[in-house]
């Protein structure tokens, strides 16, 4: 069946970005979050983003009103009953996702597909707590979702072909670029990125080179847009720890184990850009030591 109304559950950075993608593509979009302040913040940020898109000539000014009027915010899960597809982007913990999907299963009609924006958890495990495990798909957007085209799409073990194909068609209609992956820990991106970044941290730990030299080598030697350590500072060392714990817990692969240096840096409050210091020091948003 054709998807016309999309729900977004969880209005953090990812949820707000996905909501922009959906509304911009012309879908009626209902954004749910229990925290009204998160919805207000997202709405303000969305208006700012759309204004910039107009200034850059990527959007006509008259389109902004259409997009904003198609974007509905709510603090009630009941309002998601109108959705044909709900994309959850709540906290990355199985228990939190199970609780949400358990509620939505009672609220939404039988045809509604649930998609998870998880970057590391198993789609099959998420689906197992949903009450409709044949209609749950993985739909992992990249950060920032409103700019990045890629979506990793994964079926769980019990996901029906019809549900997956329907979600895939919707992803294309959103103007995104879906790629199909197996329901494996970390899918493609995090499966490769998390251990790669850990290896870079271990080079710092082992005294092989300074962070700036490692980043310069990777950028100049391989043409990567960012070095692993500046990327880690951007993402946050606390996030890297969570990713490591999730991936190592599922795979037991030594490269996924969190390097001890990360835990020491977190204890020291050196989380990256957001605290002004990580592998580099930042003053007024400018990098020192790069």
């Amino acid at each position: 069946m054709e998807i016309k109304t999309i729900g977004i559950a969880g209005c953090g950075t990812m949820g707000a970005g996905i909501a922009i993608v959906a509304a911009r593509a012309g879908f009626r979009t209902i954004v749910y979050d229990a925290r009204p302040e998160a919805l207000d913040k997202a709405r303000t940020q969305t208006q700012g983003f759309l204004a910039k898109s107009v200034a850059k000539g990527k959007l006509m000014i008259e389109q902004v009103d259409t997009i904003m009027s198609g974007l509905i915010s709510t603090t009630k899960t009941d309002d998601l009953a109108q959705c044909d597809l709900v994309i959850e982007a709540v906290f990355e913990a199985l228990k939190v996702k199970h609780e949400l999907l358990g509620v939505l299963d009672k609220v939404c009609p039988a045809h509604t597909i649930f998609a998870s924006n998880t970057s590391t958890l198993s789609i099959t495990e998420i689906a197992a707590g949903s009450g409709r495990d044949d209609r749950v798909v993985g739909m992992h957007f990249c950060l920032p979702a409103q700019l990045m085209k890629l979506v990793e799409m994964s079926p769980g073990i019990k996901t029906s072909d019809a549900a997956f194909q329907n979600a895939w068609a919707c992803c294309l209609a959103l103007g995104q670029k879906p790629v199909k992956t197996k329901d494996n820990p970390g899918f493609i991106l995090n499966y490769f990125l998390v251990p790669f970044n850990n290896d870079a941290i271990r080079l710092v730990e082992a005294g092989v080179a300074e962070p700036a030299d490692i980043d310069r080598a990777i950028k100049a030697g391989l043409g990567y847009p960012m070095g692993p350590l500046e990327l880690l500072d951007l993402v946050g060392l606390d996030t890297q720890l969570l990713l490591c714990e999730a991936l190592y817990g599922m795979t037991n692969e030594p490269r996924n184990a969190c390097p001890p240096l990360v835990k020491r840096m977190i204890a020291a409050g050196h989380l990256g850009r957001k605290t002004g210091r990580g592998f580099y020091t930042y003053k007024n948003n400018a990098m020192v030591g790069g």
Partner: protein
Amino acid sequence: MKIGYSIFQTGISRTFLKDHPLIVNGSSSTAALVIVGAGAGAAFQSIRDRAARIVVLVELGMECLGTLTGESRGLEGSNVLGFARFRLGDGEPSNLVELVRQPQTSQTAIEASKEIFTAAGLQVALCNDFAGRIIDRLVRPYYNAALRRLDEGLASADDLDTTLKLGLGYPEGPIALLERTGLQHHFDVSQALFEAYGEPAYSPARRARVTKQRQGK
């Protein structure tokens, strides 16, 4: 300060052709010496007035600088540094030089080395004397993982490549990159690192081994 240096060319360099600015900028100056080419290590041993130079730079292959200078008690280091311009297999040489120091390497020699390479239009990453230095140490496990996951059906080669290009901004996906630059070269480097570190992540992936074996026929 522009540092004069002479070039000692010893056989063919994998990464520096004779028209590269590093070679062209060489002169009759004896202030510094840059030894380039496949025979650089052996040639280094024949240089008798090494201490008189600001810096002596030796092009390295996969070996550590310590194999040329000797090591003792972690106190090794002088005016001799190693260098390697990164090149992935048969791909174009990159603009990046890994500059290899030892614990007691003189700061003056390090600064002079950076000056010489920068003047030749190269970027420099300083590192200590470990097998695989920086880039190979980081990318070989990633390439092996990509090849293994392709075998295991995580995704198609196109989807793997597309995901890593679009998701992380890499210029080329790992499968296309390795097939373009030669899986047999990846095997050689990865095998050397596997022997050096004994870590499974460096054990060459099946696809690299197959290509290497086909080359040997």
